[in-house]
């Protein structure tokens, strides 16, 4: 019995092993696929819930600037002003943040004392840990009042540039203030991506430049920046994606109105995300559905920007 049992006893563990392996592998694969399902679900549910208001909309959704959605019938709303405000705030933030972020990345990788570098990098990462609502509170409670005289000076001396035309806001709650706060918020992302790619510059390239007698800046210009360009661009686009979708800082700082205006120093403009957060508690009738439609536009924009960024980063690291 026992001798014949031994060979027969072998299959049961194999079977249980197969079951255990199958169950565990299934769970793991299920989790992975669940992520795809969630992402598809986000898009699907937004479309389903946006549809009623979009089909009832009496204005052109993409070109209209009005927002008369809190009604039971015949809503009229469009995202033109909101989309413009979103892009404007994010673009200004990007322009402010990218050069500084590249500078910080260069500082941490090539300029800071070797021992301090990681600690200093950690300090910059700390900026990413601060909740966005605290940024908003700081922006409206601290920064905005202190920027009012600066804005006054800007309109006075640089008012001939269309962006800075007056009269400047007396509360400081302008798109430029919001953009400055957004710029601080996206600094850590751009810095992290640039830092990673600057670290990967082959030592041979750098030493070759230095051996030719290049100064540190010439070495960076000749060896580091060309190599790191894709990382910087990718990081900047990830930062752009974050700035486009950022809600609280803008909702708390900006004094909104649905206009399309390049005046950075006057109150006005509004972003999609902040508009949703501000309007949602009071939304009635078609209101919620219309806000979901606006959210769908934001989702599409950020999705495109993020996919572009990932593509650029991936291509850059493949070339490297």
């Amino acid at each position, binding site marked *: 019995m026992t001798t014949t049992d031994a060979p027969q006893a072998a299959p049961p563990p194999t079977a249980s092993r197969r079951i*255990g392996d199958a169950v*565990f*592998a299934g*769970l*793991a*694969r299920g*989790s*992975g696929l669940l*992520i*795809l399902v*969630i*992402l598809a*679900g986000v898009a699907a*549910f*937004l479309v*389903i*819930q946006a549809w009623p208001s979009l089909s009832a909309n009496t204005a052109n959704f993409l070109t209209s600037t009005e927002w008369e959605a809190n009604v039971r019938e015949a809503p009229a709303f469009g995202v033109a002003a909101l989309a413009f405000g979103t892009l404007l705030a994010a673009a200004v933030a990007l322009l402010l943040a990218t050069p*500084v*972020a590249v500078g*910080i990345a260069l*500082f*941490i990788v090539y*300029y800071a004392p070797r021992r301090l570098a990681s600690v*200093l990098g950690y*300090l*910059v990462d700390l*900026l990413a*840990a*601060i*909740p*966005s*609502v*605290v940024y*908003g*509170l*700081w922006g409206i*409670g*601290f920064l905005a009042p202190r920027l009012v005289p600066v804005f006054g000076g800007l309109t006075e001396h640089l008012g001939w540039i269309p962006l800075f035309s007056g009269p400047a806001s007396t509360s400081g709650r302008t798109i430029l203030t919001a953009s400055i706060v957004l710029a*601080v918020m996206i600094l850590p992302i751009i810095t992290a991506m640039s830092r990673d790619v600057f670290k990967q510059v082959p030592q041979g390239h750098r030493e070759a430049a230095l051996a030719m007698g290049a100064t*540190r*800046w010439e070495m*960076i210009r000749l060896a580091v920046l060309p190599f790191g360009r894709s990382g910087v661009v990718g990081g900047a686009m990830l930062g752009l994606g*974050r700035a*486009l*979708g*950022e809600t*609280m800082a803008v*909702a708390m700082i900006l004094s909104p109105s649905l206009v399309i205006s390049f005046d950075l120093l006057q109150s006005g403009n509004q972003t999609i995300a902040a508009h*949703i*957060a501000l309007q*949602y*508690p009071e939304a009635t009738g078609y209101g*919620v559905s219309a806000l*979901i439609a606006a*959210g769908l536009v*934001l*989702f599409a924009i*950020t999705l495109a920007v*993020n*996919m572009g960024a990932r593509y650029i980063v991936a291509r850059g690291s493949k070339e490297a």
Partner: protein
Amino acid sequence: MSSTTTRPSGPETTETVLRHASLPRYFPAALLACSAAAVAGVLLAFSSFGVVVWALLTAVAYVVITVTAAARVEGGRKATDRFVTSLVYGCFLLALAPLVSMLWTVLRSGFARFDGYFLSVSMNGVLPSMDAGGAYHAIVGTLAITGMATLISVPIGVMTAVYLVEYARGRIKRVITFFVDVMTGIPSIVAGLFVVALWIVLFGPGRTNGAAGAISLAVLMIPVVVRSSEEMLRLVPRDLREASYALGVPKWRTITKVVLPTSAAGLTTGIMLAIARVIGETAPLILTAGSSAVSINWNLFDGQMMSLPVFIYSQVRMGGAVNYERAWAAALTLILTVMLLFFLARMIGRAFAPKSTR
């Protein structure tokens, strides 16, 4: 460019040395101190001292003098190099300014109202303008919502990471990795709207509760957990897995008994950082968990639930002086919580770091 200067290196011989004339090594530090002092002196003389103006003028004076001096002594290329060096240092200091300013403002303004009373009472029955009330209900809500979000996203996130590291090959792996990256970029308000849309389909319009908030946070948290766990699992040496297989241990036992325990510290660190990331999310909670709750609510499935970030936001929207004091105190509570999580994450990571130096 490469100028040769003769310098006496001994009493009787003069030899030609190939080297630049260069500014002394202590030049930058000395110049910075001098210009800071000089600018401070001038500003004080005009009695218009302000930290920002002082820092700006000092920087300008420093850069101008450095570049001019370097251009005269060392030549144009060195001057450009010094100019860029000052710019790069300036960028870093510029980034520290908002960090320091923010932490300082939150600390100073937050301590006005940050005490045991604030942390232990809710806003139930307190009018917004009354000099009373606290954030206890918001702390309860934050704990409950973040806790549930963690319970949802950790199993999904870690299992996805296991799948990506141990099982997935080829196309499906690339697709999932790509979409996890894409999911990292979902704006938080869109995650909130997703749950709003889902809730309307499932339960009809106008239902807000803590569970909805937790799910929207989980959508934001899952990709963060996946990315950090993936990195940690990849750090587990191949030898450990192969030793286990060689003993005849099935794959799933190898993962649960060898791979996951080995990387437990790293996984915990990553999860703590993910919690720290979502605990401050505001926008999705305004949409899903409501923004007007005033009383303590431990029930995730019934009724509005306040949370610390939403508490800050709603107090700011009310706009009075007392409201701002409450907002700053709540911000201090939130930042201290996040810092604590970060600190714990570092401690755990350090205490349980694998001993091997591979």
